[in-house]
């Protein structure tokens, strides 16, 4: 393959449009994905702020917001249907269009060729096509707020019948249709990306880069691509069936005898449980699609800044494989109380708690990597360590929810919201931040401001815990998810001060992200020039220029002689040995 690419290496496209807009260069595409995800993340974050605003002060009048949202907040009071659209779209955008796009499509595209020693992805045109397919998806999703009835309002899980019956809720009209179409674009794009990832990693590794020498980041992205390819077709099928139920009178998800808006529906023969099975068959692997890249980034970043080899590399790979495999057989834990047979609940309890074993092993390996380290607290390292802490917290709360009986009081409460904001959302968001601070020099040839980066971490870490940890208490107290006004219930009213506290913390968390945005865009233009290998790291991308030219390496592709974790090898003059350094060169570097 490398041979085929050689001719186009020499001539990078010259016109601005071919070079930066309709580019087929994996680095440009990666950055396009990343910036798209970041801007979508700003919107999704603002939606969360509005959700929190209403939860602290339900149905309060905010005249200024009334001017901003004349439909959803007429006279400044948030309507319940607008509230539901807000959290539906917050979840949808964050899960798919931010925390899948940024780490997988963004960093995946940018890093895979650079870390395996390839000039580009296996299918550069397909790669560009995948970006230009997801962009309309993003635009359709965002524009659905302006559709009649507002954006989709059945939760990010789009459970039927709420999502299938147009009269069920205002957002189930045009908004839900646009949601389905947006998702189809996303899935198409993600499938193209996944094929490209798998092919590239299998075929385009440079000389010496055996699978056993792949950085854990690449392993994670490889597994994520496979998960996506296997899991998303279930959602594609479900989305098409939903579209048919909504518009063409089929009844995949709708049983006989449904009475909506004083009218008996003509549907018969379907069941809402089918949607849940299909959705979660994708949905659960999807949460690992968010988390595995973060696990890969953390492993590599912790190794670099501990100046230590990652502890037990083979087990780290195996545990990711185990997590990926098991993620296909745990979906039913979202359905313990759905009316599904209790026997199935038992099976899913077992598989769910089993998946905790490889997860725990990973945590112990990270801790062991820190043991007798020489830690350097850079901004990326702080975020990587933050992931470990969040992962522990979120992993442990999962044990309550994974055990079917203990799930009964906690299911669909804020305990669940707390849980997934730590493990899925938190770990992957911190992963994106860690990766950004770490690879920014390679992406843009400049350093991000380190002081601002650390301040961003301190504020984010503290605000993250104070926003999401108290939600456990709310959940234990029985506060349901997705309710517009908790004070309707007498037993929830005494906990309202907790909601106010969470909202205030969330505002701090949101505001802290402005530091990041400022740092990012300021550094793109004004940051200190980056060296080729500013962190003294071992992986191959650091042997390319910062930023790497079209084709990644000026001369021949680097050859790999070792695994990526040769940090602090005894008796060698430097405390790191890049993967491209040959044994002969190491001999020369021996002390004395």
């Amino acid at each position, binding site marked *: 393959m490398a041979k085929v690419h050689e001719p186009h290496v020499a001539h990078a496209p010259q016109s601005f449009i071919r070079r930066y807009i309709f580019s087929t260069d994996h680095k440009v595409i990666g950055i396009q994905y990343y910036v798209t995800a970041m801007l979508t993340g700003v919107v999704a974050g603002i939606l969360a702020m509005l959700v929190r605003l209403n939860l602290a002060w339900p149905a309060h009048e905010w005249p200024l917001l009334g001017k901003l949202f004349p439909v959803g907040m007429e006279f400044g009071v948030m309507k*319940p249907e607008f509230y539901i659209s807000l959290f539906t779209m917050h979840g949808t955008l964050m899960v798919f269009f931010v925390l899948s796009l940024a780490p997988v499509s963004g960093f995946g595209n940018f890093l895979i060729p650079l870390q395996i020693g390839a000039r580009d992805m296996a299918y550069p045109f397909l790669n560009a096509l995948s970006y230009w397919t997801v962009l309309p998806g993003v635009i359709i999703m965002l524009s659905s707020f302006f559709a009649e009835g507002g954006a989709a309002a059945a939760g990010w899980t789009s459970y039927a*019948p*709420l999502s299938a019956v147009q009269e*069920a*809720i205002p957002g189930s009209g045009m908004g839900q249709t646009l949601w389905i179409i947006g998702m189809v674009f996303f899935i198409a794009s993600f499938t193209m990306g996944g094929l490209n990832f798998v092919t590239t990693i299998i075929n385009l590794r440079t000389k010496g880069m055996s699978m056993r020498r792949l950085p854990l980041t690449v392993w994670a992205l490889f597994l994520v691509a496979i998960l996506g390819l296997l899991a998303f077709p279930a959602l594609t099928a479900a989305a098409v069936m939903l579209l048919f139920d909504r518009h063409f009178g089929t009844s995949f998800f709708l049983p006989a*005898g*449904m*009475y*909506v808006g004083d009218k008996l529906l003509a549907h018969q023969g379907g*069941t*809402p449980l089918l949607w849940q099975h299909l959705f979660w068959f994708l949905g659960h692997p999807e949460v690992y699609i968010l988390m595995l890249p973060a696990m890969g980034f953390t492993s590599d970043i912790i190794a670099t800044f*501990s*100046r*230590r080899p990652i*502890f*037990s590399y083979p087990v780290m790979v195996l545990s990711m494989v185990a997590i990926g495999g098991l993620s296909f057989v745990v979906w039913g834990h979202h359905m313990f*109380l759905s*009316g599904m047979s*209790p026997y199935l609940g*038992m099976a899913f309890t077992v598989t769910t708690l089993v998946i905790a*074993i490889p997860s*725990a*092993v990973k945590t*112990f390996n990270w*801790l062991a990597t*820190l043991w*007798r*380290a*020489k*830690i*350097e*607290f850079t901004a990326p390292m*702080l975020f990587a*360590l933050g992931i470990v802490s969040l992962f*522990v*917290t979120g992993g*442990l709360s999962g*044990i*309550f929810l994974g*055990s*079917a*009986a*203990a799930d*009964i*009081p906690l299911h*669909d409460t804020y305990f669940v919201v707390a849980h997934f904001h730590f493990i899925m959302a938190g770990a992957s968001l911190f992963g994106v931040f860690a990766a950004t601070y770490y690879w920014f020099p390679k992406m843009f040839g400049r350093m991000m401001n380190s002081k601002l980066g650390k301040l961003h971490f*301190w504020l984010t*870490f*503290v605000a993250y815990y104070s926003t999401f*940890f108290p939600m456990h*208490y709310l959940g234990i*107290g*029985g506060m*349901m998810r997705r*309710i517009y006004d908790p004070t309707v*219930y*007498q037993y929830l009213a005494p906990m309202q001060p*907790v909601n106010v506290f969470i909202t205030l913390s969330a505002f701090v968390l949101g505001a802290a992200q402005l530091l990041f945005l400022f740092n990012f865009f300021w550094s793109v233009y004004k940051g200190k020039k980056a060296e080729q290998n500013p962190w003294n790291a071992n992986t191959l991308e650091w042997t390319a220029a910062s930023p790497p030219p079209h084709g990644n390496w000026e001369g021949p592709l680097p050859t790999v002689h070792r695994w990526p*974790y040769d940090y602090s090898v005894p008796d060698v003059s430097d*405390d790191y040995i890049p993967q491209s350094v040959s044994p002969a060169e190491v001999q020369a570097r021996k002390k004395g």
Partner: protein
Amino acid sequence: MEEKATVKSGRSGEGLFLALLIWLMVIVTTALFFKRAWWLPTLASDRGGIDGLFFAILIVTGIAFVVVQAMLGYFLWRFSDRSVARAAYWHESRPLEITWTLGTTVILSILILVGLRLWTRVFSAPPDDALPVEVTGQQFEWTSRYPGKDGAFGRTDPKLFSPDNRLGLDEQDPASKDDIVLVNQLYLPVDRPARVRLRSKDMLHSFFLPNFRVKQDTVPGMTVENWFVPTKEGDYEIACAELCGLGHYKMRGLLHVLSQEGFEKWLAEQGP
């Protein structure tokens, strides 16, 4: 690493700061659990086993939480010394890996077994003397129905649904004559098992009794049964725990648990 022991200074303040933050977080969150500032709603059913399981998992995960987070903090402080000549080149330990893998497996296996035993009990067949009740969810109300003196629920038919006949009761069926239908109110006798048939007319709802550790989705087209024993007299809230539309948040009902005699008296006052 013999070199390490010789140097004392040079610890990064950032390592200590992060360690302190993590420790502080552990102390505050654990203290709030101990204080039980916010806790499970007062128990009023025979499902105390769930509270027990919750508590057992809380102890196990709580210990893991405190130990692992504290260790993370400790490592960050202890190994933040930049004047150390070199980190250790050490990346394998079979005994360590076997220990923590097996340890985790054993603990989780116990939790699985305990949890499954309880789960099978919760979903076991109801006792013969259980009081049959039906609760039907609809946007955004709970309709409850008692079979009346004949002990049999009358036939219902969705074709008969109307604002006046919310359950679609078939007047032709003799069994339907004495059925008692209430909106957002449910009455149960104390200390007698209640066997609740759950149905839905339109969307998914979830019949949630916070004080009874009962939660079960109601699904259109399906009938799901749950049984439990109310153990404390009083008035309790019924909530909807599954998003069902714009009025989801106010789909609130009341469950009145009466003494056995009180319940009989109430029942006698109902219906024809």
